[in-house]
């Protein structure tokens, strides 16, 4: 069984390892095993304007998405978990429902809808679309953490005369911080890797990194895409590491 599990992880991680090692090749073409060692494909990444421009768009978009998703998701998660809300379960299902829709359908529908509203292909449209699909992650992580915290703390504060704002700020917020943080990171990671929605909103100013990488790959096949992927991976690993430190990894299981 152990052998099987090891083989499984070779299958799972092998392609990623290959891409990372290719990004350091000295050759002008994709070669595995890589020959020599050089940073030149990383240099190419930072010199090739479409890559670096779209990388900046992606990072800005990821941060904006995370902030908006938290602003919308946290209050809703708190209210639905522990407010006097009728049909709380149904509402929760509704808040999580974007998770189950094919992303390409959401992107397609939103493109025409937002164009009709006059937003068209713009950063704002991208932000709205990405927020729709990352909101469920924030709601789920925050609700998960909040559910595990006894209501006694808040009730004690209420009995002692704290008002809602004070309870939220001094009691609830410090306790749900790990959930908010994890939710934000999820939202960022979902946004930064999204392709099925982003490609609908592609233009010179709004192309995200995955969109540029895809169109690059459709025409040429060189190690610069490997370098771009590796940079994205490093960003993700740093995020994962932070979440693990603060929150524990079990909470990240999608079906938990």
């Amino acid at each position, binding site marked *: 069984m152990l052998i099987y599990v090891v083989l499984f992880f070779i299958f799972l991680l092998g392609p990623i390892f290959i891409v990372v090692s290719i990004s350091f090749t000295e050759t002008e073409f994709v070669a595995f095993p890589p020959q020599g060692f050089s940073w030149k494909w990383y240099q190419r990444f930072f010199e090739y304007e479409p890559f670096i421009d779209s990388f900046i768009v992606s990072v800005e978009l990821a941060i904006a998405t995370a902030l908006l998703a938290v602003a919308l998701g946290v209050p809703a998660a708190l209210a639905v978990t522990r407010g006097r809300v009728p049909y709380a379960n149904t509402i929760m299902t509704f808040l999580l429902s974007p998770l189950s829709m094919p992303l390409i359908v959401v992107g397609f529908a939103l493109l025409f809808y937002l164009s009709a509203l006059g937003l068209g292909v713009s950063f704002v449209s991208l932000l709205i679309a990405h927020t729709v699909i990352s909101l469920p992650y924030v709601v789920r992580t925050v609700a998960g953490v909040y559910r595990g915290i006894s209501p006694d703390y808040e009730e004690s504060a209420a009995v002692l005369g704290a008002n809602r704002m004070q309870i939220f700020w001094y009691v609830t917020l410090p306790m749900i911080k790990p959930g908010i943080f994890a939710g934000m990171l999820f939202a960022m990671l979902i946004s930064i890797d999204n392709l099925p929605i982003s490609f609908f909103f592609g233009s010179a100013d709004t192309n995200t990194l*995955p969109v540029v990488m895809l169109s690059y790959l459709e025409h040429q096949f060189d190690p610069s895409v490997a370098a771009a992927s590796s940079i994205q*991976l490093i960003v993700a690993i740093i995020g994962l590491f932070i979440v693990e430190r603060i929150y524990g990894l079990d909470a990240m299981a999608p079906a938990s």
Partner: protein
Amino acid sequence: MTDQVRRGTSRGFSGVVSPWWIAVTALFLVVFFVIPIINNLLNTDQLVTLAKQRPASFYYEKLFTDPYYLGIVADTVTLSVGVTVICIIIGYPVALFLVRHAGRWSGLVIFLLIAPLLTSIIMRTFGWRVLFARRGLLNDFLLWIDAIEKPILFLNGPTSAVIGLVHVLVPFMVLSIASVLRSIDLQLEESARILGASRFKTFLKVTFPLSLDGIGTGFIIVFLLANGSFVTLLLLGGGELKTLPLLIYQQFTISRDFQFAAAMSNVLLAIAVGCLYLQLRLIKRKGVKG
């Protein structure tokens, strides 16, 4: 639950944020998620197109009567089901290992499962293209062990697309099954063993049936994801295997027949909603968990 709420009320505490906050978030989702999709469902007719505008029914008729498009709809479902079943077969033993045998290594196993989820789908596809290339690692290996005489064209076929999809989706399956396996009371298995059942029989008669819920959840997650994915097919399938999402992408980028793309996205949506309905049935059967 109701008791708790009532007690809370009697003390004058009704949650830390006003329930109205839900209205704000729900409104956002209604305006930017529900209405656009309904709009897409109803207004396939009105999408801005060229002069040759046709009624929506024309496209649905084309999708469901033209054998070519009917084949694509069937292929989409078959591919998703096939990938999901392969994920169950490959993933189940890993989930079992994670829950029962990994012990203090379980943190590492979970990390290794999640790490690929955070790499971009393009990265993983790129890796497979290198492996499958005509002069790639796999061909070199097969040539070296004399299994083949000439390099085989792995790329750009259904096989490489299926492998790529399984690779992307199998962690979701493992995590879904593992979270249910973890909740199974170990005493049930011990009892079966004490009563004389063999290890294998215990697994078959006790553990496996109890883990069916996890397989169900995993099935729905993986099916939905496989159903909507096109990047893997685009970069590994080589156009031989066509599915609805891939066709939507191509209609959008190449043919620019938006009406047809809208009709196809509605069919895709219908498949997803059907799958969600199954999920709700499954949850109802389990009883709603807080």
